[in-house]
């Protein structure tokens, strides 16, 4: 095939260096959130959501009330064993955030170490490690929709559940939209472009407008499908096996707490 002359000319176009790292960075961040919500599609545990939430509440309460590293190390053992049963990627994520929190609180209390407060100084970093790890494990095991369902189980106001539920859904939808917009921005801006930063604020504006439309549309769609603003409490009763296991572990922890913090074992 004979190409016209102008098409046969070799073109040497090297675009000047441009910084669009911030777009990739925002894109990555949006995708991580969307992925985190997406991954939580199905229930993976035989433990029920209300049971786990109640367990988490008592567990955190005990952590906060503990005054010795001994009881905290028991809790650490329990959390490590549960972590062993999770996939490696989630373990890395949970441990990473927990260690970061512990490091931050260690930095905060480090002056106390210099003032000579002894081992008690390490209580705060240990507690932040444990609490962040516990919350990480529960969110890993519980899908979002079960979480909102469980909140209703505890008779939380319907408005609160509704707001939480719609927020989570909207984050997912808007995240997808943001992903499309950012990809479009990245693809269409060829070469050096000084208006990229301004375009990014445009993306945010479009997202905001869409969010308003979305919320209206969703509410209308829900009303059309018979939503009366009521979230009926879960009909399904919690499974006995899982609840019993949780109760057993919890009573064991309570006993340990009474013994170690109440000093019963120390006196024996």
């Amino acid at each position, binding site marked *: 095939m004979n190409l016209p002359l102008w098409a046969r000319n070799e073109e040497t176009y090297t675009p000047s260096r441009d910084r669009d790292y911030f777009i990739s960075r925002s894109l990555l961040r949006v995708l991580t959130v969307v992925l985190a919500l997406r991954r939580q599609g199905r229930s993976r545990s035989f433990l029920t959501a209300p049971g786990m939430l109640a367990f988490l509440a008592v567990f955190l309460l005990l952590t906060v009330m503990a005054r*010795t*590293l001994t009881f905290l190390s028991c809790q650490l053992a329990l959390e490590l*064993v549960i972590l*062993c049963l999770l996939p490696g990627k989630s*373990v*890395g994520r949970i*441990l990473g955030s927990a260690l970061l929190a512990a490091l931050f609180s260690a930095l905060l209390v480090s002056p106390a170490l210099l003032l000579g407060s002894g081992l008690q100084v390490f209580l705060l970093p240990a507690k932040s490690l444990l609490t962040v790890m516990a919350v990480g494990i529960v969110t890993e095991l519980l899908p979002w929709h079960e979480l909102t369902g469980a909140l209703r189980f505890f008779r939380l106001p319907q408005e609160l559940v509704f707001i939480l539920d719609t927020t989570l859904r909207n984050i997912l939808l808007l995240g997808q939209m943001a992903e499309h917009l950012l990809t479009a921005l990245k693809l269409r801006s060829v070469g050096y472009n000084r208006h990229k930063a301004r375009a990014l604020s445009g993306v945010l504006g479009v997202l905001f407008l869409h969010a308003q439309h979305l919320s209206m549309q969703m509410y209308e769609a829900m009303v059309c499908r018979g939503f009366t603003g009521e979230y009926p409490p879960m009909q399904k009763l919690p499974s006995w096996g899982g609840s019993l296991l949780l109760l057993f572990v919890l009573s064991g922890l309570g006993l340990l707490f009474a013994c170690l913090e109440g000093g019963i*074992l*120390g006196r024996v």
Partner: protein
Amino acid sequence: MHIPENYLSPSTCAVLGAAMLPVWLMAVKKVRQEVPPEKMPLLGIGAALSFLSMMFNIPLPGGTTGHAVGGTLLAVLFGPWSACLAVSLALFVQALFFGDGGILAFGANCFNMAFAMPFAGYAIYKGVLRAFPQRQLLAAGLGSYVGINLAAFFAAIEFGIQPLLFMDGAGHALYAPYPLWVSIPAMMIGHLTIFGLAEVIFTTAVLGYLQKAAPQLAQGKAEKASPAVYGLLALLICGTPLGLLATGTAWGEWDAEELAEQDYLGSALGYVPSGMEDGFSFAALFPDYAIEGMPEIFGYILSAVIGTALLVLLFKLVASFIGHKTNYDAPAHES
């Protein structure tokens, strides 16, 4: 067999650490080549097995204690390079969190228990298996016996050369005070008899159990741990307080002051070697597997749970990092 802090001079520790460096590098390379990421968590369970076996202390007349290591068992199950890495990590967790074995002496401990033991044990195992192909248990038992004794022999030599090399002006040893003619018999008598036997029993019992309960694993073909393996771990964890029955400590392992009253040289030593008294000290999180304010048995079980979980998690994390790399530079369709 764990060499505590300051029993070896820093220079000895440095030499043995330097000797281990290429071994570790090679082990990492080999494991990366040979062990698929899916099998990594299994290796963590192997390391946990070794960790637990080292918590079962056995008393010996004369006041010292010893334990099985499980290095040969791991070599049989996963190959010697993987065993080297797994035992090294078990020793690392012990040194860092439980103060069992020194941080400075980590290289020396790894040389004895993570390098000499699995490789020697595996060589014997392969040799015997070649002669008697149906006798896997016998081969593993013999291998483990030779492995632990070789490791003990190396440890004895490392102890024994200290007074020859490092003395102060008054003729007092700076580090471990017993020369070769005391250290070698003292270590070897125990290991040739009771500890060697303990290692053989541990190795063959676990291997025998795995052959029945998880035959895939015993033949090195399993990709995932079966419930039977987790059951074995749980059983071992519950049994660890048995290790507390041994009350004696080996050569002032947890307290250097004890050394002054011991009389391996015919009369009481009479002094605490200065290098041990004011040497490097490291405060482990749970020293001697004890947790403050807790009865010994609970502390021991809790330490076992934490150590086991840490090792399993460590290998899981490593597997998730090295697993499934995508090569974006590869051509889309290779033809």
